[in-house]
């Protein structure tokens, strides 16, 4: 065990940090779930690509820099700490790309990967359907082979960024006679394919982040099947591992968020401390006033006047003390902040532990479900704490509120946490399915 970063990694961290700070956009782009913001984010993808930082863990032949897992984790830490825009290409880079590397033909790799790396092609995921959410194997959208093409009919929904994406990666039923998990294929569909209609669904935050996609005799080349026809489930589950585990949500973003939460708490403590200080000083003034009043009437006994003055002094002293230590932070909230920070560290070290196993040739199986539950609930708690710290202003739009609304989706997407807990119980602990 060695938890120091070697000089090579430290140099890498420096290089990464320097580049991100030098290239951070002056103004944050609009939401990636708006038409304009999507294109602004595409420009950021282009900037990252030109600097060699869009897909650092990929081979250099496809625009990466051959980073190992540790370098990638360092990159992610620096990325989220630096406050640069989020990744509009995350669906492609984090979920589809590992699948293309595993199952893609040489031609598919050579065509799709460089275009994904540069932001020329941005991907959305077309898995869920109105009748198939957690029960993904229940999908009905079908694709029928016709010469060199497949003809798709059906409907996908809840496709994040699906309205603006250039390509959609779908799971479709290619063998209508097969049951459930069998007879599915993984199909890559260009958004301009004839017969595809996309309609936005406004999310909770009123952004048009979701799309529902309708296929009416939508025709795509059979070359766009990823993996073997009929093997869609196995191919999809390989991507689901990436989605649930570290490739979608590295520790870096939560460490950065926990640090910002700590700063928010320190600032609120100072404000609350100052308010208490003011209140203390006010008690002081009032106390002193009582003392003065008593002395002025000349009829009150001197002791009351003295006591009033003493309360005045004590009140003022309390005001000053609270002001200096900033202990205006509610203890329960303080513990929530501490927990957020501890959880981010726990996720970080658990990830490094898993990374060492992966680098030694292990693989991330059902463990990914443990990670997914942990990061999604950590993210939600962390943002809920931030809103409690903001108090009256929690409902007023802010980055924290945006983050909270975003985090609310975490326990739902990539397989609900209820399903993940079933997976943990059945595949990690070995409990009976029925």
């Amino acid at each position: 065990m060695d938890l120091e970063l070697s000089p090579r990694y430290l140099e890498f961290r420096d290089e990464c940090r320097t580049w991100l700070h030098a290239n951070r956009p002056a103004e944050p782009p609009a939401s990636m779930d708006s038409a304009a913001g999507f294109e602004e984010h595409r420009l950021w993808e282009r900037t990252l690509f030109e600097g060699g930082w869009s897909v650092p863990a990929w081979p250099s032949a496809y625009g990466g820099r051959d980073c190992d897992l540790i370098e990638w984790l360092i990159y992610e830490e620096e990325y989220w700490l630096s406050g640069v825009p989020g990744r509009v290409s995350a669906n492609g880079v984090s979920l589809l790309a590992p699948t293309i590397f595993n199952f893609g033909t040489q031609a598919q790799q050579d065509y799709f990967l460089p275009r994904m790396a540069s932001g020329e092609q941005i991907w959305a995921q077309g898995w869920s359907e109105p009748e198939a959410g957690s029960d993904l194997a229940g999908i009905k959208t079908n694709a029928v082979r016709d010469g060199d093409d497949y003809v798709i009919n059906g409907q996908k929904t809840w496709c994040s960024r699906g309205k603006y994406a250039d390509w959609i990666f779908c799971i479709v039923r290619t063998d209508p006679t097969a049951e459930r998990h069998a007879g599915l294929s993984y199909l890559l569909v260009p958004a301009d394919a004839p017969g595809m209609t996309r309609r936005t669904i406004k999310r909770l935050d009123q952004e048009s982040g979701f799309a529902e996609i309708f296929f009416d005799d939508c025709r795509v080349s059979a070359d766009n099947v990823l993996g073997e026809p009929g093997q869609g489930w196995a191919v999809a589950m390989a991507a689901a591992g990436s989605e649930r585990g570290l490739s979608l949500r590295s520790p870096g973003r939560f460490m950065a968020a926990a640090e910002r939460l700590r700063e928010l708490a320190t600032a609120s403590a100072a404000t609350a401390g100052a308010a208490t200080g003011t209140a203390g000083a006010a008690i002081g003034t009032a106390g002193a006033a009582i003392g003065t009043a008593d002395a002025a009437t000349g009829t009150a006994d001197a002791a009351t006047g003295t006591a009033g003055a003493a309360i005045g002094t004590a009140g003022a002293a309390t005001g000053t003390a609270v002001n200096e230590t900033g202990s205006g932070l509610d203890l329960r909230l303080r513990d929530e902040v501490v927990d957020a920070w501890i959880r981010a560290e726990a996720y970080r070290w658990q990830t490094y532990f898993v990374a060492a196993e992966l680098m030694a040739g292990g693989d991330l199986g059902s463990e990914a479900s443990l990670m997914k539950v942990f990061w999604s609930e950590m993210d939600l708690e962390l943002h809920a704490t931030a809103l409690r710290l903001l108090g009256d202003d929690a409902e007023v739009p802010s980055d924290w509120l945006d983050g909270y609304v975003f985090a609310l989706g975490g326990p739902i997407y990539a397989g609900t946490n209820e399903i993940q807990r079933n997976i943990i119980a059945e595949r990690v602990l070995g409990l009976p399915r029925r």
Partner: protein
Amino acid sequence: MHFAFTDEHDMFRDTVREIFANQCRAEAIRESWDSADGRVRGLWATLAEVGVLAITAPTEAGGLGMDEVALVRVLEEAGYGGVPEPLVEHVAVAVPALAAAGAADLLNAAVSGESTCTVALATGGPNVVAPVAADLVVAEHSGSLLAVDSGALTVVPKDSIDQSRRLAEISFDPEAATLLAGADVALASDRAALGTAAQCVGVARRLLDITVEYVKERRQFGKPVGSYQAVKHHLANVRLGIEFSAPLVYRAAWSVAHCDDAVVRGRDVSMAKATASDAVDRACRAALQCHGAIAYTFEYDLQIWLKRGWSLSGAYGSASVHRDRVAGALGLSD
């Protein structure tokens, strides 16, 4: 950066796991409850023989010269095994303190297993573990550590819900004790919390294993209770608690062994203990609930680990005490 145990660590872990599985079975633990000193016959000698008592002692003193990283791996197993010996006190705290003070004779006796040590630290509160079984107490006094011979102690025993924890309040004449110059109180306290955190993780793992086996077998409404989602989710939560506390314990072990900054070291240890205490508390609750009435009996062996969990969760600082310390390190308290 390589966050993994070595083959040597794993081999040592396997060795002690086997020893505990053979020599510290539930029947042996129950027998120890009826003895005067609360110990498992012959176990201490075996632990001395394989070097468990000497893990952290320098090689010149007959020790293995390994660090806290190796140690937490073994202490986790001690938790898993329900071992009723004062292992954390002896191996994690007393031995390094005696070594730091250059107390050669006392160290030799401790490393060879000839003596058993326990500790009395402010962070452990008034209840000292196993002073009756111990020959030597490493005791905090006025910011220093003293070595106190058990013959010089006044011992007032106290009951614990855990029959394996023979508690007592002790007093002694500091003038009659030996000052362990060079041994650091803060470091000793961190080691006690770290070692206990490792045991908490081991206890939680055992509670989970016992419960998983039980719910696979126990049938109600015609199927195993472990097939019900409510039970599954309880146990998935226990697994989550273990999954995300163990790495903090290993990371803290590294900090204790290698970090010179006492604030960072203390923060890492406290993150580990707070999280491990929470994890074992959750494991206790879920294990009892998923078993049902059988776990509420004295006869069923789950109680060994339930009670160990309850007591170790609070030992050398509860989760809230350690959260408070993390808050300090993060600049969130006075």
